[in-house]
């Protein structure tokens, strides 16, 4: 136990020490016995020391220099460098230890890099925006979603205060609150992004717990809820609209019923008139409920489609002949520009007829007398395009994106007068969408509108 420290001393220095001592004593003895002059001793010592120096260089200084160079290299970050010293002495031991250390470091760094890449990949692939701030409120990182929303580059934002990156009072207030109270906070905030209109975000700010100087800070997750808000609003409007549409005929029916019960019943002429109005209103109610049911069926894709190759020429002709009397009544020219050899599309003939009926019905309704309505069909690449153009009232630019919404009516009063509910175009949109097509509208107020839809051809390869 007491000799433990001896283990640390290797035999090499001890042996060389005794070897040198022996030579020294031998020379001393020879000199004392006058067998050797100073000059002679020098002759022996000089080559011996040259030999020793050479050995020292070979075994110690050279490898040490190599180790120093390698260590400097590693400090600069090049951990792939390996030392090739395989001797069994201390130098070899040192080289092996340094190689081990480098390998260990490399592994650790690889592990950390991999972990960081994984975290980065998760952040990058998130659908929500993420911003991390340090305890001073400076930006540590932002993910690509945030870059996209606010049209930023991560490099230009790092180290800046949040107000220099996202200039929004509420965001900054929320973050300050999270940093000060060290409690997670959440809020809905309207923020201006890259686009002209603000978007609505749900912000979750979570403080990072940490005791050291460098730790702490806060992570913010931004979830874009603009679409959801819009949907919520549409749903509210929808319910309000349906209730309104249902109540109007009901109120009228109720009013006439009460008048009848109050005595008008006894006057056969009046009661007949009242009953006729009530019948009309009931008719209107039934139609509304039918249309609503149709729409919800199509929206939920509950309709059993009778999919088959459909020749639209027949359908267009049939629908057009349906509307000829109405068009004649208003002195409208109803013209068809449909080639005879139109390739067929794949779909449900009744539903496609419904689309044309709704479009044509609108066109005739909203075109003043002496105008014209034109139906055109043509093939564009692998799509069939059908157009319904009128010389009607047209649709103002601000209403164009909304005409396919349920219950949206450009002019409520006029539309109701003409007996519309604002559902027709919503049905059209859903049918065309279910057929894998697209419907668009172009319009100039006062000049007329052009509705056109495209459907994929049944056999694009045969053409």
């Amino acid at each position, binding site marked *: 136990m007491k000799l433990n420290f001896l283990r640390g001393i290797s035999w090499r220095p001890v042996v060389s020490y005794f070897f040198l001592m022996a030579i020294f004593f031998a020379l001393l003895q020879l000199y004392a016995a006058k067998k050797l002059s100073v000059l002679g001793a020098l002759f022996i010592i000089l080559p011996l020391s040259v030999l020793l120096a050479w050995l020292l260089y070979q075994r110690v200084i050279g490898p040490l220099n190599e180790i120093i160079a390698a260590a400097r290299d590693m400090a600069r970050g090049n951990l792939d460098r390996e030392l090739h010293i395989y001797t069994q002495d201390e130098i070899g031991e040192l080289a092996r230890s340094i190689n081990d250390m480098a390998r260990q470091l490399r592994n650790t760094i690889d592990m950390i890099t991999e972990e960081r890449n994984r975290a980065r990949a998760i952040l990058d692939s998130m659908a929500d925006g993420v911003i991390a701030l340090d305890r001073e409120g400076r930006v540590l990182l932002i993910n690509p979603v945030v870059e996209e929303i606010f049209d930023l580059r991560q490099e230009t934002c790092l180290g*800046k*205060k949040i*107000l*220099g990156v996202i*200039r*929004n*009072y509420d965001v*900054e207030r929320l973050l300050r609150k999270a940093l000060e109270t060290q409690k997670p906070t959440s809020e809905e905030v*309207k923020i*201006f992004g890259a686009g*002209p209109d*603000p978007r609505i975000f749900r912000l979750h700010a979570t403080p990072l717990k940490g005791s050291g100087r460098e730790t702490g800070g806060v992570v913010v997750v931004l979830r874009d809820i603009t679409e959801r808000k819009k949907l919520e609003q549409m749903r509210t409007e929808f319910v309000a609209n349906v209730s309104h549409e249902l109540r109007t005929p009901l109120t009228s029916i109720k009013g006439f019923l009460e008048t009848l019960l109050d005595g008008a019943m006894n006057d056969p002429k009046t009661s007949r008139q009242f009953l006729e109005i009530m019948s009309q209103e009931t008719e209107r109610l039934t139609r509304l409920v039918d249309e609503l049911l149709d729409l919800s069926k199509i929206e939920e894709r509950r309709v059993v489609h009778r999919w088959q190759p459909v020749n639209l020429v027949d359908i267009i002709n049939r629908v057009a002949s349906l509307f000829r009397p109405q068009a004649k009544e208003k002195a409208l020219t109803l013209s068809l520009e449909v080639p005879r050899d139109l390739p067929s599309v794949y779909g449900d003939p009744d539903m496609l007829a419904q689309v044309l009926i709704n479009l044509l019905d609108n066109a005739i309704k909203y075109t003043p007398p002496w105008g014209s309505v034109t139906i055109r069909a043509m093939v564009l690449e692998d799509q069939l395009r059908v157009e319904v153009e009128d010389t009607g009232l047209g649709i103002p*630019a*601000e209403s164009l994106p909304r005409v396919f919404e349920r219950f949206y009516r450009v002019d409520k009063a006029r539309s109701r007068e003409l007996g519309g509910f604002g559902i027709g175009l919503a049905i059209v949109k859903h049918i065309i969408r279910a057929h894998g097509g697209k419907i668009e509208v172009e319009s100039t107020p006062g000049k007329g509108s052009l509705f056109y839809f495209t459907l994929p051809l049944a056999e694009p390869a045969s053409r």
Partner: protein
Amino acid sequence: MSPRSSFDKALAELQQDILRMASLVEQAIYDAVQSLVKLDVAGAAQVIMGDEMIDELYLEIEDKCVKLIATQQPIARDLRVAITGIKILLSLERMADHAVDIARATMCLSGQPLTVKCLEYIPQMGRLAQQMVKDGLDAYVNGDVQKAKEMCALDDEVDYIFAKVFRELINGMMENPKTVMQSAYLLYVSRYLERIADHATNIGEAVIYLVTGERRELN
């Protein structure tokens, strides 16, 4: 803490305060224009009430600025930072007031559908003015002279639309005297937006002065 670093910190804090106020002003301009387009009285009322907060913030930041100059007696660039701070604040405050003016006009216009045709120009002007405020503040944050100049160039576009709106509204009034009241209010609104854009160019000039020390007339 040395007096120097506490001064630097105060200057950084001043910039943050200005950005804080700017965000509220940007929002107010947008909300004012939107509530006008939708004739949303509730939205307009919110803009008017929100101005109180902006005014309070303005006074608070201005006080800080004055104290900074009085106690630290900055010179050269530091003095420019403090002075431009006050200039930008003033411009922002005036913009917020114009947003309130627009909201007031909305209140007066409400209750009847807008029949005047050139309503689409107002949001267009609003967007441009808002963009100018945003770019101006971005230029301020980054000390970006180039961006400040580009922003000021947008003012010509605003002026052009304003001239167009003016012509069309006057024509409309002559054709149809019933629309005179609406047209007059819209004329005011477009004037306010034009003024907001002018204040934005002031911010741009202030940024250029801050960075280069040169005074430029960019309006």
